[in-house]
């Protein structure tokens, strides 16, 4: 198992490198990052521009720039933004904000998907199954930002009006100027988290519940479940101990595969709810042609995706004794 993990980690290094080269080249060729600075009125003196170019290594050839970036990355330094601030400290702060939302949304979506999927499978071809199926397709066909905006602009505001005070917040990840420790602000964080989490979870929930349904159906039709029933075990015991346990395993892989898509969804969700997370960093990085910022986002996300897939594979082998990684 250890050999498997190590091998997978080694294999993923070239993938990371190649994607960083790709994105580096793309962002670099997309335009002049100092265009905004140069277009300022009154125009900054050549000395200022030159100093900024020097700070960002823009006066060096492209290959050298990539080499410097890579060298710094290995030492844990992600370079500077166009404005000259440190990327890593900014990223670290934003990572916490985004991770909060992503992890919560995933847990929420998994639990909901399992419940709905299993009920759908057990009550196959009933009105309940059809309702869940239709809801699944509906969420699958709904743009994340539209759902988010709908929750935010219509439902949440109506709800808050009805209650008479702000219960769920619609903007930001926390109230600005919040003082005190993490735990004393937990309630405030939670109130801000409700809508983005529901939004982000709804999209993954749709496909996962469909998947869980067919996975559960497969198991329910297998011989060993029929045997368990024939031996006289109660229906609920067969469902939970025999069928559900097996039917949960394939979901692990699907969740891992979808992880990248969830990170993408988080970018959009953050935009809808005006969060200052990693997604905002990515979008401002792209629009301002800030190579270091985009690369930083990419590296963190790619490492997360690779790591997540690795965990899923290991977990899969642990859950399903038929799979052994040599």
């Amino acid at each position: 198992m250890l050999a498997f993990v190590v091998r997978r980690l080694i294999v993923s290094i070239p993938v990371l490198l190649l994607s960083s080269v790709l994105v580096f080249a793309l962002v670099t060729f997309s335009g002049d990052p100092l265009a905004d600075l140069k277009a300022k009125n009154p125009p900054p003196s050549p000395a200022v521009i030159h100093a900024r170019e020097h700070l960002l290594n823009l006066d060096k050839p492209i290959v050298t720039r990539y080499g410097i970036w890579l060298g710094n990355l290995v030492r844990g330094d992600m370079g500077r933004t166009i404005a000259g601030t440190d990327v890593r400290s900014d990223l670290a702060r934003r990572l916490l904000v985004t991770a909060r939302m992503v992890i919560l949304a995933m847990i929420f979506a998994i639990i909901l998907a399992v419940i709905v999927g299993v009920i759908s499978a057990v009550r196959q071809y009933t009105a309940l199954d059809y309702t869940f199926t239709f809801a699944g397709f509906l969420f699958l066909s709904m743009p994340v930002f539209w759902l988010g905006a709908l929750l935010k602009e219509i439902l949440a505001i109506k709800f808050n009006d009805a209650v008479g005070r702000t219960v769920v917040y619609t903007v930001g990840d926390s109230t600005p100027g919040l003082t005190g420790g993490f735990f004393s602000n937990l309630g405030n964080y939670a109130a801000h988290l409700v809508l983005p989490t529901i939004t982000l979870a709804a999209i993954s929930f749709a496909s996962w519940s469909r998947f869980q349904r067919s996975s559960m159906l497969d198991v329910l039709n297998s011989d060993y479940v029929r045997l368990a029933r024939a031996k006289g075990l109660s229906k609920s015991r067969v469902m939970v101990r025999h069928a559900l346990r097996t039917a949960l395993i394939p979901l692990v892989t699907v969740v891992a595969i979808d992880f990248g898509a969830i990170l993408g969804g988080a970018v959009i969700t953050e935009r809808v709810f005006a969060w200052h997370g990693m997604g905002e960093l990515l979008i401002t990085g792209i629009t301002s042609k800030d190579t270091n910022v985009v690369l930083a986002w990419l590296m963190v996300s790619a490492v997360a995706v690779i790591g997540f897939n690795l965990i899923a594979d290991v977990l899969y082998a642990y859950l399903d004794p038929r799979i052994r990684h040599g």
Partner: protein
Amino acid sequence: MASGPTTGTSTTGGPDLVETPGGAQPGPKPAGVVEREFTVAVRSQRQMILRRFLNHRLAVASLIIFIALLMGSLIGGRLWHYGFADRTGDYSQPPSLKHPMGTDDIGHDVMALVFRGAQKSVQIALLVALLSTTIGTLVGAVAGFYRGRADALLMRFVDLVLTVPSLAILAVLASVVGSKAGGWFFVAIVLAGITWAPISRVVRGVFLSLREKEYVEAARALGANDRRIIFRHLLPNALGAIIVNATIVVAVAILTETALSYLGVGVQRPDTSLGLLISDGQGAAQTRPWLFYFPGLVIILIALTVNFIGDGLRDAFDPTQTRVRA
């Protein structure tokens, strides 16, 4: 391609109900002439698939609605008496007979905007589906048929494409090319550059299993070369999986394109797209909800019908997945 073998099942693993050993030879079987012990109306594989699809009422209804939406989006803008750039002189009007979807604050007719946006989205989605299905099928076919080094190389490349959250790559790419003239065309190419990867994986899987079938061996014994085996024998049998995935790509492309436009890196002004319209309408969702609802509903309707069509096709091509008794 369409005149391929009419026997043989479409996807992997299913029981070969119609296939006789080595029976998937090219050249149509004279239907109805075959003498059987029990007289049964002989239907070709294609007829059976069509029948199964037509029996799927939701899918057929979706197909009709989808075609109507397609027609509406492609030619509706030309027929409608307001252009998407026209100022009508009616500001922020709620829906009325004159403006069925109302007007925005600078006098644009929302119906005209939605027509234009839907046209862009549909054009992009169809082009993406065409491009990515072609590329994905070719790559998957080569990888699955030849295996070995070509397979390893191509699939590592697919891994690379899939490791990085695709929205980030798309956003970077689209911001580079999106502002160029004919923006929607580049956005489509960029989207196709990502969406072919999952298709190639599916096609590869199907090819890996199909290439071991007896009829391939028989064709080879008859002297068929690789190209003939791939295009005449394997591809028609992989068609089910390919078509179903193409429908998924249409839905994904519509949702991704609108998301990119919402983030400001897809279709650029002065042109418009459904994502841009929602982005504009979001702030007005409370006061002028028609600006926000109509573009969103059109996206959902397109994606939902495409998903239902895909579901119907999947059932039609592979009935083994549906007839399960709980």
